[in-house]
Each structure stands twice: as structure tokens, then as C-alpha cells.
């Protein structure tokens, strides 16, 4: 423990216990029913284009929140890149250890398969863009840990992937603004396809962004323009 004295430490514990008691009283005082939105969501679920209520809320009823979430991901990636931490370069070519190489070779296609399935199943079961994006991000992290780095000729494509999710989302919003008069107000009967389009772009974008955050910054070779 690093506190200056035992008295301070004891005072901290007392304050934390008091805070826990206050929060517990607040939580116990919540009404059991009557102040949720579940009835409103169930009433409009048929018009939303998907049959799973959480996906409908994320991508239709509260799509603007999801747009801002994509913007937060991009903002944090820019913030990480702006800090100038230089990632150590991977040795040229495949990683040296045979077991690591074979595990990566076997696992990565399964990652991609699972991500594609999660993206598709999000319409009627728990799943969707963020779940698929997280699995793709994990695939990217496994590749980075195994020593692979993206080759220089993929640089522009990866940067486009990072931007694709947000750009597609905003483009759909502007298109609906021009056609229907309200931002992200999907046309009747088209909700399912708009949601699928946004989710596909978003999952790729989230996967690449998460892997890029793990990498930490541009590798040294990219920085010097090699």
C-alpha cells in the first residue's frame, strides 16, 4: 500500500464502504417495473427490419448512438497514433517458431468464419457488427503477436478499412436525410438492407481499428516512408 499513513488508509476504506451502502440503498429502491422501454421496442420491432430487439435498438432505434461510437473508435485510434510511440519492427518474413506459425495458419480462417457468422446471425439472435468486429480484432491481435505486420502495399487499404464504417454510416444518414427528411430514418421496407450494409462496413472497420490500437502506432518503416 502506498498511502501516507494507516489513518488515511482506514479513512479511505470507511468512505468506500459508505459509498457502497449509499449505492446499495439506491439500487434497492429502484421500482420493479413500469419505467422501461421494452414494451415500446416490442411494439415497433416488426418495422425495424431485424427480429432481435438489441440489434434493432443498436442499429435502428438508436442508430445515432452507434454512429457516435464508431466516431469514438476512430478518435481514439487517431489519439494513439498521435502519441508517437514507435512499435518495434517484426523480423522480415514469417515468425520463427513452427508451432506459432501453424497455430496462426489454422486459426485465422476460423476467426474470419466466426466473424462472418456473428455478423449474419445478429438479425435474429445475439450478434451483429460489434461482436463480429471484436472477433476480427482478436484475429488481428493474434497475427500481430505472431510477428506478422501488414505489408506496405496494404497500407492504403487498411486506412480505408478504418474509415469505411464511419463513412458508410454517415453516407446512409445523409442519403436518408435527403430522401426522407430525417437523419438515419430508413425508408419503409429497406431497413433490413440498410442495417446489413452498415453492419458489414462497421464490422470490418471495428476489426481493423482494434488491431491497429493493439499495434499502438504506425510501425517505424511506415513512419520513414519505406
Amino acid at each position, binding site marked *: 500500500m502506498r498511502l501516507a499513513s494507516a489513518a488515511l488508509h482506514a479513512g479511505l476504506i470507511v468512505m468506500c464502504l459508505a459509498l457502497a451502502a449509499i449505492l446499495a440503498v439506491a439500487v434497492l429502491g429502484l421500482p420493479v417495473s413500469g419505467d422501461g422501454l*421494452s414494451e415500446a421496442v416490442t411494439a415497433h420491432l416488426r418495422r425495424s427490419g431485424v427480429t432481435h430487439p438489441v440489434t434493432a435498438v443498436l442499429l435502428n432505434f438508436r442508430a445515432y448512438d452507434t454512429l457516435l461510437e464508431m466516431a469514438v473508435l476512430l478518435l481514439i485510434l487517431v489519439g494513439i497514433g498521435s*502519441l508517437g510511440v514507435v512499435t518495434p519492427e517484426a523480423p522480415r518474413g514469417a515468425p520463427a517458431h513452427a508451432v506459432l506459425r501453424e497455430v496462426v495458419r489454422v486459426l485465422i480462417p476460423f476467426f474470419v468464419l466466426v466473424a462472418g457468422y456473428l455478423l449474419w446471425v445478429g438479425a435474429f439472435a445475439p450478434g451483429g457488427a460489434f461482436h463480429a468486429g471484436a472477433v476480427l480484432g482478436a484475429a488481428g491481435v493474434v497475427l500481430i503477436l505472431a510477428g506478422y505486420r501488414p505489408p506496405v502495399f496494404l497500407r492504403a487499404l487498411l486506412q480505408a478499412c478504418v474509415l469505411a464504417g464511419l463513412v458508410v454510416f454517415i453516407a446512409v444518414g445523409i442519403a436518408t436525410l435527403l430522401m426522407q427528411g430525417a437523419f438515419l430514418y430508413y425508408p419503409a421496407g429497406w431497413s433490413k438492407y440498410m442495417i446489413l450494409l452498415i453492419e458489414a462496413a462497421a464490422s470490418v472497420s471495428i476489426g481493423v481499428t482494434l488491431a491497429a490500437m493493439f499495434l499502438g502506432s504506425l510501425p517505424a518503416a511506415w513512419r520513414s516512408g519505406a
Partner: protein
Amino acid sequence: MTSALFFMLTGVLLFVMGLYALVVHAHVLRKIIAVNILGTGVFMVFIAGANRDPGLVPDPVPHALVLTGIVVAVSATALALVIATLLYRHDAHPGAGEE
């Protein structure tokens, strides 16, 4: 006590434990983990609070909010870890890289 209430109280406990650990520990990595536990406690209260009424289906809006929250928390942890790396390298070579 319903299971929702039990999980909400567990979330409160996690929150307070994370807050205590954030204040007490000096190491940056421990503070980052403590903030993560703080956030996980809040998410737990949200999710359990969505299921308070056993007669209805769980409220999907808090579920969507927590999904967004998890992604933001992961990204913020990534940023915090990069800053911690910068701190570590600065402490190891004081004054290096100053412009």
C-alpha cells in the same frame, strides 16, 4: 432477493472495489485495471437493472447502451496503455525525445 437485485449489488461492490484500488495503488497498470473493474461494475448494474421485472422480456435499451460502453471502455483502455508505455519509456530514459 431476485437474481437481478443480487447482480446489481455485485455491480455496486465491483464499482467500490475498483474505486478503492484506483486510489490505493501507485502503479499505472494497476490503476488502469482498477478503472476497468469500475466500468465493469457499472455495466453489471445496467444489465441486471434491465431484468428487474421477471414478467417482461429484458429491456433491450440498456443492453445496447452497455454494448456501446464496452467498446468505448476497451478503446479508452488501449489509449491508457499507450500512455503508460510512454510514461515507462520516459522514466527509463529521462529527457529522451524532447524537442
